[in-house]
């Protein structure tokens, strides 16, 4: 029963609005389903080719990263666990830059002003696609989809999804996963 419901209830939401008078206690970040999972080389689904506009206005697509390991991070500046994991992502993006790992963010339900302020604040230098409507997550439907915010997907060099972390990622956890993928050279 827990397994069956596990994939479902992990939306990092930003407010329950029900009837005409919404309750004033809003954001319920349901973190019931945090966790990391890695997929074996034979079991990895192919990542969809998503493309969009970055926060600075240039066009970018995931297929441009083929041949490198990609860490795809769904985030928003309004989301507390995303803020908690931001130093981890900034540090690891620097550390693995020379080892052929590129980080790409997808900024959800956010405005460019807040997002850019967030990136300045935490020293995040990798680009993020601007996705206020969360349409890019639709492309992952049926494969390994983002189950909540934040979600971090690890995509290997051949463009297959090798791992997923739902919820705040820890330095040691993400570091271990990245070391695993880059060592396996897959």
């Amino acid at each position: 029963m827990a397994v069956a419901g596990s994939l479902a209830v992990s939306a990092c939401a930003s407010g329950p609005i029900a009837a005409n008078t919404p309750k004033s206690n809003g954001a319920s970040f349901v973190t019931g389903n945090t966790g990391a999972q890695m997929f074996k080389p034979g079991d990895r689904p192919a990542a969809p080719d998503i493309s969009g506009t970055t926060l600075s206005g240039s066009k970018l697509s995931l297929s441009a990263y083929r041949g490198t390991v990609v860490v795809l991070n769904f985030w928003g500046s309004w989301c507390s666990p995303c803020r908690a994991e931001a130093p981890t992502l900034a540090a690891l993006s620097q550390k693995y830059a020379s080892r052929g790992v590129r980080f790409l963010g997808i900024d959800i339900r956010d405005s460019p002003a807040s997002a850019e302020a967030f990136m300045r604040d935490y020293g995040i230098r990798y680009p993020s696609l601007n996705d206020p409507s969360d349409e890019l997550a639709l492309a992952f439907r049926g494969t390994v989809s983002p189950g909540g915010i934040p979600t971090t997907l690890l995509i290997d060099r051949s463009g297959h999804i090798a791992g997923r972390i739902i919820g705040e990622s820890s330095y040691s956890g993400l570091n271990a996963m990245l070391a695993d993928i880059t060592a396996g050279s897959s």
Partner: protein
Amino acid sequence: MAEVRTPGAVRSPGGTPGEPAAPPAFPGGPGPRPFGLPGWARWAWRQLTSMRTALILLFLLAAGSVPGSVIPQQGIDAAAVQSYYKAHPALAPILARLGLFDVFGSPWFAAIYILLFISLAGCVVPRAWRLLGSARALPPRAPKNLSRLPHAVRYATAMPVDGVTAAAAAVLAGRRFRLQRGDGWVSAEKGYLRDAGNLLFHVALLGVLFSVALGGLFGYKADRLLVSGQTFADTVTALDEFHPGRLVSAADLPPFTLTLERFTARYVTSGPQREQPLSFDAHVRYTAQPGGPARTGDLQVNHPLSIDGAKVYLLGHGYAPVFRVTDSRGQVVYDQATPFVPQDMSSYLSEGVVKVPDAQPQQLGFAGIFLPTAVDVGGQLQSAFPAAYAPAVSLIAYSGNLGMNSGAPQSVYELDTAAMHRLPVKPQVLTPGQSMKLPGGQGTITFTGYRQWVSLAINHDPGQIPALISAAAALLGLLLSFVVRRRRVFVRAWRGAGGATVAEVAGLPRHDVGGGFDAEFTELAATLRSAHQGGPPPGGGDGPPPGGQPAEGGGENLTAGHADPAP
């Protein structure tokens, strides 16, 4: 010495009355037969499907929902759960182990409602089976002594015995009675529709249970607040709330994308019903699949949009003032529409907060009110009308630590000022375009305009239509079982003294609450009599029987009581 008798005991052949009977030799040895596992299973099943157990389970279901309403639930408000942990550090882990933070998903609650379902189904299915048998049964044999029945008539007729029974069968069959015939008697019964209705009610009840289970397993409810101009894709990360059924996963959400193009609300402007809403109309554009054709639609309250199996309802609306915040370094760190929550349904005075976590050097937070039609009444700011004829905001500014960086979830409508201090700036009323400068060069906040938001519910309930059909069928079945009565009519014929054939007609209503059987029996008996005696049709008076046979002495009584015995 008392004689010991065990059920089924057989007195030994040589025993005398004074001796106790020898106990019979059972396979397991002397003594009471052991119950055994099948016996215990049967006993448990009978207990489970009894009405008393069903009522107890129903009470437990209600009682088990109480902690779900009193204690914060993980799936509904995780922030409240976390604050409960902080407030009751010793008690919270115990409650968590008992599953009280997720009552409706916990194993013990699931056990209660699964047992309740089994109990109801186990009670209804055998009853339905028995009703099916009863609805198809033939009427019983005609009793020997028909005079004992509450309605009985006896008369003589010239037709032979076989002719009497054949004529009776023809008449009764013409009235759609179900017949059973025998040697000199005809037994007829009508009103099986009652049992059919009862059967329909039981089966429909099972159907309702099944529909509820279907909805609970495969249905879901989701909510989203959308500001005009915004688009959202139907994914778990884009929804504000998502309550899936047991077997629903995020991949079952239909992949539509919906944009709120504009929202129009009209209100009554004058008269006694001033400020009452006239209509809400959300004009939306949507695509059912990514890359599919874009369609437009109008969402109104109680007129949902149906997209790929999901129904999108318009629930409520409000205002979202647009703010732009510049921090101490002159950079724009916030520039978006912020949904404010209406506090007063007639004037739509709304409250909300603005959180700017990336302002430098310190995080900023603002709490304020938005007034659609701001008026100053004796020094107090009030909203005179729900439409935005004179929008204004009034804000209080804070700076410090919002508490967002630690990762603990926070409400977007509440500002946690525990680690913040209020900025010493006089509260100002801002109209669109005006700014408030923060002291100490901390920045500026500008109220640039306002937009409106709508709250949408995206629901999917596969059990809705089956439940409707089942409920209607249950009502129909119940009606039939109350209105239709079962009644039996028996006809016996035998050769009486003097060669004449005596016919006796008797009737027995099985359920006669309304008392309408008397009239029916009277009319039926008169018809049968005229068929047997060839006399005038019923209601045509009391003419002499043309068969020439004199009526039995003493007359005939057509109502309850005493028919004359044949000589």
